[in-house]
């Protein structure tokens, strides 16, 4: 639309059109009130311009009904916009259960992305069209922000925690990926490209990628290297088979769901949440595993659960 002078980015995801419609509605409200205010002021400015210094204009104290009207009308409109924007936001915040997963690690000043199959990319993301994709993201250093304007999605990528984002591309092509949170010197160079492909092309691309091991396989290797098995495979520590996505009872009696954030915390800060019935003996692996390796470990633990994926929110 408007080739030479676009007013919006490509509508390349399932949510883009909905966001744009609300945007146009807001523009309509904006134009309406701007017109009302400007035209009224112009009219008054001409009609009541001072013609002589002696003029004594009538003094008007105010008008309560009028005040109520111009309070109620904007109030009604913002309630509509609030409800519309919120329902859209809630829908746009919930990834479908069947979404394929991509793992994102931001660092000054690049994006590192991993597919579960083990293919890694830098400043580039290849995804199939018409398939929901869920991103699990974290940062190695400062706060970044993963933004794809053509998809109308954006979320901060925060060190020390996982944030998630999802989209379903509806259009093949290449789209900008920006870091939207100021992250230091080369913030404006922390850019990449999302390539949306036909599913068959995507499969080809995936198999043509450097065939390393899948994330779960890499995680299994780490599991060996870090000797996790000496406790978690012997009953000294809680077993990990089938734990992913399940509720876990803690030593203080509370329950927690073994999701990505919990597993990450348990590797880095083992004493934060102790599983009931086990002694707090696990050492921290902070500094020994990178954010990418952590994601691989989690992928491995997840692969030990028969219904992995289903228990996720």
């Amino acid at each position, binding site marked *: 639309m408007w080739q030479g002078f676009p*007013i919006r980015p490509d509508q390349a995801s399932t949510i883009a059109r*909905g*966001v744009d419609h*609300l*945007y146009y509605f*807001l523009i309509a*409200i*904006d134009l309406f*009130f*701007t017109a009302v*205010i*400007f035209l009224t*002021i112009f009219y*008054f*400015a001409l009609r*009541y311009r*001072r013609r002589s*210094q002696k003029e*004594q*204009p009538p*003094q*008007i*104290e*105010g*008008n309560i009904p009028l*005040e109520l009207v111009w*309070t109620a009308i904007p*109030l009604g409109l*913002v309630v509509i*916009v*609030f409800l*519309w*924007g*919120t329902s859209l*936001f809630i829908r746009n915040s919930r990834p479908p259960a069947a979404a394929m997963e991509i793992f994102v690690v931001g660092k000054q000043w690049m994006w590192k992305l991993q597919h579960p199959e083990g293919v890694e990319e830098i400043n580039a993301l290849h995804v199939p069209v018409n398939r929901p994709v869920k991103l699990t993201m974290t940062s190695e*250093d*400062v*706060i970044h922000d993963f*933004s794809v*304007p053509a998809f*109308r*999605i*954006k*979320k*901060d990528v*925060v*060190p*020390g925690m996982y944030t998630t984002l999802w989209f379903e591309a509806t259009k093949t092509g290449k789209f*900008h990926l*920006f*870091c*939207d*949170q*100021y992250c*230091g*010197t*080369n*913030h*404006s160079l922390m850019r990449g490209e999302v390539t949306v492909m036909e599913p068959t092309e995507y499969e080809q691309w995936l198999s043509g990628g450097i065939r390393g091991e899948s994330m779960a396989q890499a995680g299994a290797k780490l599991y060996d290297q870090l000797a996790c098995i000496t406790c978690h495979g012997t009953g000294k520590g809680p077993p990990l088979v089938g734990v992913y996505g399940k509720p876990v009872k803690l030593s203080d009696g509370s329950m927690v769901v073994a999701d990505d954030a919990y597993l990450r915390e348990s590797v880095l*800060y083992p004493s934060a949440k102790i599983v009931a019935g086990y002694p707090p003996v696990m050492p921290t692996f902070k500094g020994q595993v990178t954010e990418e390796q952590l994601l691989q470990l989690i992928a491995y633990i997840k692969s030990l659960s028969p219904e992995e994926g289903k228990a996720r929110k």
Partner: protein
Amino acid sequence: MATAAVGPETRVHYLNVDYGIKSWLLTTDHKRIAVLYLVSITLFFFVGGAAAALMRLNLIEPNGALVEPATYNKLFSIHGIIMVFFFMIPSIPAVLGNFLVPMMIGARDLAFPRLNLLSWYIFMAGGALCMYAVIAGGVDTGWTFYTPLSTTYLNSNVMSAALGVFVAGFSSILTGLNFVVTIHKMRAPGMTWFRMPLFLWAMYATSIIQILGTPVLAITLALVGLERLFHVGIFDPAVGGDPILFQHLFWFYSHPAVYIMILPSMGVISELVTCFAKKRIFGYSFVAFSSVAIAAISFLVWGHHMFVSGQSIYAGIIFSALSFAVAIPSAIKVFNWTATLYKGSISYQAPMLYALGFIGLFTMGGLTGLFLATLAVDTHVHDTYFVVGHFHYIMVGGAVMGYLGGIHYWWPKITGRLYPDGWARLAAAIIFIGFNLTFFPQYMLGYLGMPRRYAVYPPEFQVLNVMSSAGASILGVGYLIPLVYMLWSLRYGPVAGPNPWGAKGLEWLTPSPPPTENFEKTPVVTEEAYAYGAKEGAVG
């Protein structure tokens, strides 16, 4: 009005009562302190403006026409820090508020004159620390000091800049305190709350925010300093801290700070519109209480800066609703100002042009705020040029227009001289046009997806960036013109007389410039503010 015939040079007033640098640096006269602030913040304005000019120049080309990204980051950081903390926040309160709060209530000075002078020194100490940060190689935190970038990863002069802002905050707190006490305790006989000019309601609401909000900023910046020096682990996750906690603390002050900048301007507009329409304000109590409502709600909306930060979506929903709520009192003000023009006797001297410019630009800025309060739309435009456009419409289109309108309106009172009205009207028009050319394209850039704080950008954004930069050059000229004719008027401007606009209000009853004690005898107020229908001299 016998004094009107006497030229300002032959009568003793606050400007000529004493000469020499010492008489200025040790003054406790609120009017002289106002002038000290006026000179200081004007200097800061042009420093911040120069940084903006270099930024806009750089953005003419996608790969940066002028500087490396590292330098560009310092430019926008300096621009933000100087403009927010050393120009916008002190602008109307410290200059016009200082000058006018005592005069408008019929007092001789503020409640704590020496504290007032101390505020200026604290402000200048903070400013000196920030200027040191600039000269010693710059700072590249942005004005937002986000952690852990500022605490752990940057090697620029973060400490001196943060300390500068920390120190300057105390000036803001003390000024607010001074105003609150003065307005409570020193009103002239008959000056009831509902006879106060609306400028005072706005200053009062602003002062409350300054007193309650600024300490939180001080705490936050102190924690940033502690974290940087001793790695205590408050904000940096590498040592067990929470970076999002910083954002909660920072915006708990910095969103209300937006209202520290805009509320005083709204107060100025109420004075200007009534004077140049010769009308009492339409719906006095609605305009007055909307200031208080804005101040109160402003403390409850900070989370809208964090919709995409990883905060819970439920928090997002609550903050979205509260952010919409703040739009209502703002809309009420705009409608009441517009209604005040109805059946008025409207003249278009320069201050009125600035006031009408304010109403237009504030309306556009306020309405685009709705986009940012809307969760699904904010998700797309957050941290893009849309946000940059929006807050410049509020802070520059709104607050700076209001400030300039106020300066033009009270200039004859402050200096005793009139500036050339034609030039002033020309400048107002140039600023209005230049402003829109600069910042309207930024809304479009933002929706197209261009992130803010980008030194280099994809080429498809170039056309709009060039338009914005072209507008900025016009805007820059617009800001320089008043500097010239204002300085010119100090020497060559016609003598103003006590009340050149035929305005109501106690400040117009004394000669221009006023004597040190403001009023020969304490005025007695017998009527409401803006009694434009009443006979001359009914006040007093």
